């Protein structure tokens, strides 16, 4: 994660509050029942994430950018199954902290988490091999 994240906007603050509630154990139990996993944010099911993984055909040399990753879903599943490297980017720190913890467990050193605006990512042209973008701002 970057040392000096940008000051949060009103929108980011509202999402930080939302994620604080989202991180409760009870909410996690509800996600397991509805989506098949505790990690998801948004409405992407385990089955849909699996299909995206198959379509992307990524390998260990590839870098996947999960843009607007929230708590790390669905990039975590794609990286876990494909073996690719993963960069999860979002703004709310209340989402990125559990993302970092979850990705360290599931993907390990191949995953990085960054607090960054999607319009100003610290990436050069062609650095990513694929991008996933699911349920951002919903």
């Amino acid at each position: 994660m970057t040392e000096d994240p940008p000051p949060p906007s009103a929108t980011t603050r509202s999402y930080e509050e939302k994620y604080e509630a989202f991180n409760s154990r009870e909410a996690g139990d509800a996600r397991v029942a509805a989506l098949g996993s505790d990690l998801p944010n948004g409405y992407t099911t385990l089955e849909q994430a699996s299909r995206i993984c198959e379509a992307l055909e990524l390998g260990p040399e590839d870098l996947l950018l999960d843009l607007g990753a929230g708590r790390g879903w669905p990039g975590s599943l794609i990286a876990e199954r494909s073996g690719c490297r993963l960069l999860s980017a979002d703004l709310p720190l209340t989402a990125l902290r559990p993302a970092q913890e979850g990705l360290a467990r599931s993907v390990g050193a191949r995953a990085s988490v960054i607090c960054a605006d999607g319009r100003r990512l610290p990436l050069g042209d062609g650095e990513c091999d694929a991008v996933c973008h699911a349920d951002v701002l919903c």
Partner: protein
Amino acid sequence: VIVIEAAGGLTDEAERLAAQLGPSRVGADAPLVELVRQVGLSVVNVEDVTGDFRKTLASMSQLLDTRSAALRSAEGSDAYEAERDKKARMSEGVACGILRRTLVVAEKPYLHTSAGVT
């Protein structure tokens, strides 16, 4: 890319209703698949996953109801009510046929040059 968006072919009034019922802070001038094409990507697959979305919303709403006490205690009543209301609004939008969820897989077109494929 997966997004919740307004269904195609809506009247202006239905578009406005879809914006009210759909996720906050989301608005686009064109369907997702058109936006993906506009940035120069080749669309590989487009899938309407509204059916799955309907089931997920129903399942989440049911869980919000059955675990109401625990969730209110953990998250606070205001957050709980806001989430419950959001799910109900989106369910209504899907039921009315004005909200849909779309999955698009696209790729960067390969450039064929004299030096080969880049």
